[in-house]
């Protein structure tokens, strides 16, 4: 178990990185507290796997340091860092039995056979592999193999951090739930620090206490799922998390008032000064409602999803989505909408304007 600190980490796969695009990781300062369950969320190619491989020691960062409990481990091998990593595709040693697979990391470290037996049995029971221990690992299904990969990480008692690199990619949908709750259970039982890389927001939000959202080699926001939902710091977070994502509308700020398409939008605490850059108004569909005194729109489409309805409306060239309750009547005559003044925010060049909105 360890607290993991990343200091001004940068990484490039190019020999002599020049421009910004050469950097897979632009610049990172991060601290992962001991025993936390983290999700690393972002689109493909944003540097998630690179970051993971740097923490586990499979990659050496171009610049910066990795600290475990304050000790510099930047130059240490994966073995000496005592980490566990589960990969996208299950890795099992085909010729070995399930038992030998689970015992492999312990035997490599010279653990005595009775202790190996004890640990393997315990972990196998936890992962519900105990009936399969004598089987050849190559004969198992994808989820069984992925459990073995996970188990090989968990058998060691000295593991500092368990990392998952999109571990459920090849798992059947109905088993994803089962495995995910298993991971949660493992986390509660063993209390390891866990980092879970994914591009699936549902996975991230259900697994993690803290979600780290990455974009283009940078961290755009770290926060609880609620933070990310209610106060996205960047329009990317707003758009990437939530279904449907946040509405992002061009706006102007004039004398303390926020104006969208000629209409003044009431905000609890609008930006005091006019921020520099391209200004946008961000508001989640959950915080838009039909209101008699709001902005005039026309309804384009209604999707009834059962528990709620997703309504797409249009104001000029701008599409706005809003969520209406189940069975709520959608006004057909001159519909008007209003934004929740506590939850709508102004973004400048994509970043939330601080002090503008209240929590």
């Amino acid at each position: 178990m360890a607290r993991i600190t990343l200091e001004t980490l940068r990484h490039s796969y190019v020999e002599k990185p020049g421009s910004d695009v050469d950097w897979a990781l632009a610049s990172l300062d991060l601290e992962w507290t001991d025993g936390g369950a983290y999700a690393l969320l972002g689109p493909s190619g944003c540097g998630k796997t690179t970051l993971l491989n740097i923490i586990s020691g499979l990659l050496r960062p171009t610049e910066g340091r990795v600290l475990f409990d304050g000790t510099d481990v930047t130059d240490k091998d994966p073995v000496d860092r005592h980490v566990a990593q589960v990969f996208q595709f299950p890795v099992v040693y085909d010729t070995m039995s399930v038992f030998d697979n689970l015992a492999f990391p312990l035997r490599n470290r010279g653990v005595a056979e009775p202790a190996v037996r004890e640990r393997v049995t315990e972990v196998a029971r936890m992962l519900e592999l105990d009936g399969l221990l004598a089987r050849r690992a190559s004969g198992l299904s994808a989820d069984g193999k992925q459990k073995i990969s996970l188990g090989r990480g968990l058998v060691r008692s000295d593991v500092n951090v368990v990392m998952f690199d999109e571990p459920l990619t090849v798992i059947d949908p109905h088993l994803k739930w089962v495995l995910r709750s298993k991971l949660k259970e493992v986390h509660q039982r063993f209390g390891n620090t866990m980092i879970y890389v994914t591009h699936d927001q549902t996975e991230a939000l259900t697994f993690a206490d803290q979600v780290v959202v990455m974009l283009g080699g940078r961290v755009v926001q770290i926060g609880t799922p609620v933070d990310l939902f209610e106060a996205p710091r960047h329009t990317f977070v707003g758009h990437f998390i939530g279904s449907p994502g946040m509405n992002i509308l061009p706006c102007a700020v004039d004398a303390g008032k926020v104006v969208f398409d000629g209409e003044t939008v009431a905000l609890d605490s609008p930006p005091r000064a006019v921020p520099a850059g391209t200004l946008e108004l961000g508001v989640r569909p959950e915080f838009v409602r039909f209101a008699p005194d709001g902005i005039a729109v026309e309804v384009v489409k209604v999707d009834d999803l059962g528990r709620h309805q997703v309504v797409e409306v249009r104001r000029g060239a701008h599409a706005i989505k809003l969520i209406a309750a189940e069975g709520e009547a959608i006004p057909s005559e001159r519909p008007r909408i209003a934004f929740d003044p506590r939850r709508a925010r102004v973004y400048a060049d994509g970043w939330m304007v601080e002090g503008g909105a209240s929590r």
Partner: protein
Amino acid sequence: MTARTTNQKAWWLVAPVVVLVAFNALVPMMTVVNYSFQETFGDNVFFWEGFKWYEELLRSERFHDALVRQLAFTATILAIEVPLGVAIALAMPRRGPWVSVCLVLMALPLLIPWNVVGAMWNIFALPDIGLLGRLINGLGVDYNFTQDPTSAWVTTVVMDVWHWTSLVVLLAYAGLCSIPDAYYQAAKIDGASAWSVFRHIQLPKMKRVLTIAILLRFMDSFMIYTEPFVLTGGGPGNTTTFLSIDLVKVALGQFDLGPAAAMSLVYFMIVLLLSWVFYTVMMRNEGT
């Protein structure tokens, strides 16, 4: 019963394959079978002999000797080429500009015609004018492949290793390249030694291609003809007379078509049987 139109025209679609197989396998094969039961003195006159040639062959010391020589040769080159090929494949770079250089170097021997390989090694190893022959004799070793059986054997084996190890290398290399990085990364994290990585990741993942490599090398070396024919002509004496060389001596040298046909069929059956044994043994744990 409902009336059904029967259309047999589809047979025409398989006809080309049937004709092709008939002419390149069935007809020649049956001709050989035909010869193997008869005696001929030319002019297309045949006398029925029954199993006589088979009985003679199975009792023939000459055939036994050639078979033993053949088995020894094949076992030797397999024992050298397979481990050596795997070792070279492991040592080859997995990425970077040297990959293509290595691949081309490896492919070169495979592109040389068999008889050229024989001729090259013949001249290369001649004790009086060959570079290799002069060198070895210069080092004080008595080496003359045209007169000394050991020298002839060593030369034949080394020539085959030089010619065909590349095939094993290329196949093993392809197997190695198909292993995802995650396996090596997981092994690193699990603290596996280099030997463990080879034993538990690389070797199992290469198993299929190695099976193919071994089968190809087995069949090919078991039927080797051209290189030893050019190099030694089966000599000195009969010491490098392998099955094919012996077969040609019987069929074309002595023009004994009947015995030669019987020998061909037995030879064919041995290759088939051994290939099947190899394949079954190597595949017995697949998919369980």
